Structures are given as structure tokens and as C-alpha cells.
């Protein structure tokens, strides 16, 4: 095994899990979706944003629940 591979976290070393689908970045995307949904729900500017807020938050919550099981 190369030195670079040895430096990586144990559960990623030798894993074929795509780097882009690691837990950290995916959780961050889900967090942004949830935050956007909450802001859309509470903003006083546009009814259309309020209308789509629940779908956005729900998508973020479902995504967060799924990606929190992904490897680090």
C-alpha cells in the first residue's frame, strides 16, 4: 500500500466509495438544504418561497438521514 493510502482514514483506505459521496460533504449539502427550507418558511417576502419551503426542508431531512450512514 502506498504512503498516501496509509495516511487516509482507516475506513476509506482501500474503500471504493466515491470521494464526492463521502459523509462530510454530503451532510453539508443536506444542511444547506434544510437551512434554505427553514429560511424560505420564515421569510416575509414571497409567498412562492413559502409554498416550496416544506419540500425543500423535507428533501434536506431525508438526504441528511440517508447520507449520515455513508462512510467518512
Amino acid at each position: 500500500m502506498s504512503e498516501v493510502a496509509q495516511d487516509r482514514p482507516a475506513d476509506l483506505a482501500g474503500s471504493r466509495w466515491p470521494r464526492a459521496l463521502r459523509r462530510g460533504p454530503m451532510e453539508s449539502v443536506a444542511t444547506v438544504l434544510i437551512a434554505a427550507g427553514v429560511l424560505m418558511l420564515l421569510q416575509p417576502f414571497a409567498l412562492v418561497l413559502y409554498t416550496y419551503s416544506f419540500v425543500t426542508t423535507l428533501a434536506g431531512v431525508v438526504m441528511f438521514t440517508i447520507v449520515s450512514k455513508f462512510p467518512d
Partner: protein
Amino acid sequence: MTDQTGLSGLVDRAALVTPPVVARRVRGLSERAIAWLFITPTMLLLLAINIFPLIWTIRLSFTNYRANRPNATVLDVGLANYQSILTDPDVWAAMTVTARFVFWSILIQTLLGFALAWLIDKKFRGHGLWTTLILLPMMLSPAVVGNFWTFLYQPQIGLFNYIISALTGAPASSFQMLAQVPLAPWAIVIVDSWMWTPYVMLICLAGLRSIPDYIYEAAEVDRASPWRQFWSITLPMALPFIMLAVLFRGIENFKMFDMVNLLTGGGPGSTTEVASITLKREAFEKWRTGYSSAFAIILFVTVFGLANIYVKALNRVKSR
């Protein structure tokens, strides 16, 4: 020692009174089975009082069920309740009232809480007593606080009005904090801030106490001014804790019900009608159970999403 003897005596007595049939059965079980035996009652209780009502609420949110007409035909209305809530300007208005309440109460609590934590962290003479006094409002029940502040806000006999009168010169009975449209939202923000600023202070204090002294010593050696030390060391290192407090108070204030209900009940008009008050009115005054179930699910998903972010932030703070 006495406790241990007492405990072993209790265990011996329990072993003696256990019927032999039961004892034989338990002895034959694996450790895993015994663990399940202990966990099962709690799991069943949790399912009965938490999971089942949640699933039932989700089911009701797709129907036109009304709890005051249990014998009426229940129709499946699909996503109509959700559509109705998410396109209703009145519900949207309740959400904006909630947003204003959450924004101002968090802003005040964070500023005051951090300032108090910073002062308490200086360890001046009698700081222990002051910490205890500051923490007192947090230990009271919201129902008690609501009633207590209703009296304080009384225009004729309320202490709050007299203090404002003494400070501004305006007659004490010339304004009503809970009955005037421009003042009622602020009345609730003041009470919530009075009660929960100590909590924010505690979290900020934990953040300030976690900063090692050697960082300040190094800054002193580098001749950094106290102002520079605050902006470059204190604030950045306490920021994760402040964010944690903001997130926690945000979740709590988003679902605030008891205090608003006791102080104003959503009035005057709908000036202080936060989302939870609207939900209560729909569920128990208009008896639109299906509709209010859908509303409850929307609020639940929002709080659940915020709680996910909170747990993530908490883990980040723990790993520091």
C-alpha cells in the same frame, strides 16, 4: 460500605423471593436475551407514546378528519391539507410572526448572554453569587413566568409600567404592553429574553472557559491590545458555542407555545399569533384535525431538520 451491604442484602432478598420456575427460566437465557428483556418494556412504551401518535398524525394529515365529529365519514384528501397550508397567506403571516419573534429574542439573548458570560468569566468578587442570581429565571416553569409577567405588565399595578414611567416620564397607565399592537410582540420577546438569557450565558461561559490561558499569554507577549485579543482569540474560539446556543434557542423559540399562550393568547388580533398558537386554534377551536395534523407535520419536519444541524454542530464542538 453500608450501602454495599444494603445493596447485596437487597439482591439476596430479591433472589430468595424469585419463584424457582422464573429463576430457572432466566438462568437459561443468553445475555443478549436478558438485555432484550429489560429493553422491551421501554421500547414498547416509546412506541406507544411517541412513534404511534406520530404515525397516526401522518395518517390523519391526509384526511379531512374532525375530532369533534368522530362518527362522520373520513375522506382521504391526499395532499390537499398540505397544499392549503402552504398557500394560505394567514398561515404564512403566522410564520413571519414566529420568524420575527425568533430573530429578536435570539439576537437579544445572544448579545446579553455573551456579555454576561464575558463579565462572569472575569471572576470578580462575588461572581458565584451573581451567577446563581442570573440563573434563577431559567429554573422557573414557563407557566409561572407567564403568570408572573402578566402581573408585572398590568397597566395599573404592574411594576414594569412603573419602571418605564419613572425612566421616561410617561404615565404608567398610558400604555399596555400586552394589549397594544406595537408593544405586544416586544412584551413576549422581553419575557423570553429574561428567562433564557442565562441559558445562553451558561453555554457561552463554557466556551470562554475552554480557551487555554497560554493563548492570551502569547498574545500579551506579542503586545496585542485587549480589543485585538477579543476579536482574534475570544470571539473566534467561543463562536462554535455561541452557534450552538443560537441553534438550540432557535429550535425552542420556533415551537414556543406556553408563554405566548399565557401572556397574549396570540392577540391583540393576530399580532403575536405564532405558528404553535395557529396550530392550537386549528386543532382545538376550529376542530380541523386533519388540517392541523398536516400543519404539525410541517412544523415537526422543520424542527427535526434544525435538530439534525444542531447535533452536527454539537459533534463538531465535542471534537474540538
